């Protein structure tokens, strides 16, 4: 598995898109810091960008890599290696290279700006951790979609729809249901609804840490009231881990029966 990981990683690290992605974050980091002049505010702005953008990029890279390397995967499948090791290697290769682009792209400007002397270092690290989680989650989800969809165009479409649903539509439905059912106690419902969306979950996790009540929103407030800040963070982190583990598990299940 490590060998496959190594080569997937090399391949991706040399692709133009990895650089574009890296440069984008680099630029974003510099612009935010030097326009804002305030690390804390920059972190909040970054959060808003990261929780939407990393899932999108993870989704696109995931499906694209799967479909583009299809023939090569067939060559690998004819080698004496276990199936799941091939795909786990590719999965980790994509996720790690995307995470590296994120960490380096944002890390460099922040370090240059004097992050290590600022108190925002923990907030910033958490942001990167959440970004990494989102990468791993969405690459896994998109790999699941790609594995289940033979047709490239359809697979791409489903993957983008999934992102759109989790990033935008989910919140809309959630808000509407809060308005429609506002005469019922909705605490438990909204807690559960948040757990089912990794993007919401990440947002709450970061906002709990930043401790900005105004931005928490209804779910965040419920979350804090229900779990408290520290326990709430622990819970949301745990659920994020589940969001990685479950799709990876399903991937392996799917692989057992899949024809190539």
């Amino acid at each position, binding site marked *: 598995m490590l060998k496959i990981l190594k080569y997937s990683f090399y391949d991706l690290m040399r692709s133009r898109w990895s650089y574009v992605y890296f440069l984008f974050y680099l630029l974003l980091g510099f612009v935010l810091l030097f326009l804002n002049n305030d690390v804390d505010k920059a972190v909040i702005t970054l959060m808003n960008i990261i929780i939407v953008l990393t899932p999108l990029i993870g989704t696109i890279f995931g499906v694209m890599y799967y479909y583009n390397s299809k023939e090569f995967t067939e060559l690998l499948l004819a080698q004496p290696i276990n199936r799941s090791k091939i795909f786990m290697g590719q999965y980790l290769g994509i996720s790690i290279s995307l995470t590296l682009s994120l960490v380096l792209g944002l890390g460099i400007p922040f370090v240059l700006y004097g992050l290590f002397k600022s108190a925002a270092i923990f907030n910033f690290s958490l942001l990167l951790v959440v970004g990494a989680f989102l990468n791993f989650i969405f690459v896994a989800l998109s790999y699941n979609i790609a594995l289940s969809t033979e047709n490239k165009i359809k697979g791409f479409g489903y993957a983008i729809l999934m992102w759109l649903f989790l990033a935008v539509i989910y919140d809309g439905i959630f808000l509407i249901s809060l308005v429609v059912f506002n005469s019922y106690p909705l605490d438990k419902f909204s807690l559960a609804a948040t757990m089912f969306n990794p993007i919401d979950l990440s947002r709450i996790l970061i906002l709990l840490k930043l401790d900005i009540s105004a931005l928490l929103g209804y779910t965040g407030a419920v979350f804090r009231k229900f779990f408290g800040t520290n326990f709430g963070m622990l819970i949301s982190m745990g659920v994020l881990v589940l969001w990685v583990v479950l799709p990876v598990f399903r991937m392996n299940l799917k692989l057992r029966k899949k*024809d190539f």
Partner: protein
Amino acid sequence: MIEFKNLHKRFGKLVVLDGLDLEINKGGIFAILGPNGSGKTTLIKCLLGMVIPNKGDIFFEKKSVLRQWAYRNNLNYLPQIANFPPNLTVLELINMVKNLRPKTANEQELIELFGLKSFLDKKLGNLSGGTKQKVNIVLAFMFDSDLIVLDEPTNGLDPIALIHLKEIIQKEKDKGKTILITTHIMSFVDEVADEIVFLLDGKIYFKGTVDALKKQTNNDNLEHAIANLIAKQYA
């Protein structure tokens, strides 16, 4: 050496292999022929463990291959489409595949034979289709395995490369290897194959030597003999 037993495979409603039985003995070149969509590639992919049959079993060296992977160490495969990670160089790819298998490889000889030396540092994304196929052939022949499976090996090769390919195939056969080939180029079959396995409707329609086929169809030309077999399906 290889035994397919009552193999069934469906893709949705489409029945590709329908109770196929086939035994292939060690040594010799076997051409697997059949019209488009007759299940040649599916049969090979079942053997390689890429396609999982609905029913039936496959034995390689007397052991079932279903859900196994270690047996593939004694088998080389040349896939139909040569498409590699575009950002790796030829040398890196060769080293990667070498790295994945515990066997020693003799890639130098093949690289020289196909004149790939000047391409070793080039990225795979920048190679022409024929050159990629040459790399593909190097990858398939660089290990010393008892079984070699070639899916459309002549795709995009120039005449010189084609001659070299035939030489290699002959050399491997002389070493006592078993070689399975699928192709649509009958002159190639006529030249290299010892036996023909003809697939039709997911079953073995004919299995025997080239001469036996010519005799059975009353045709001296292999191309016409095969066309004769296929025509029965269209009728």
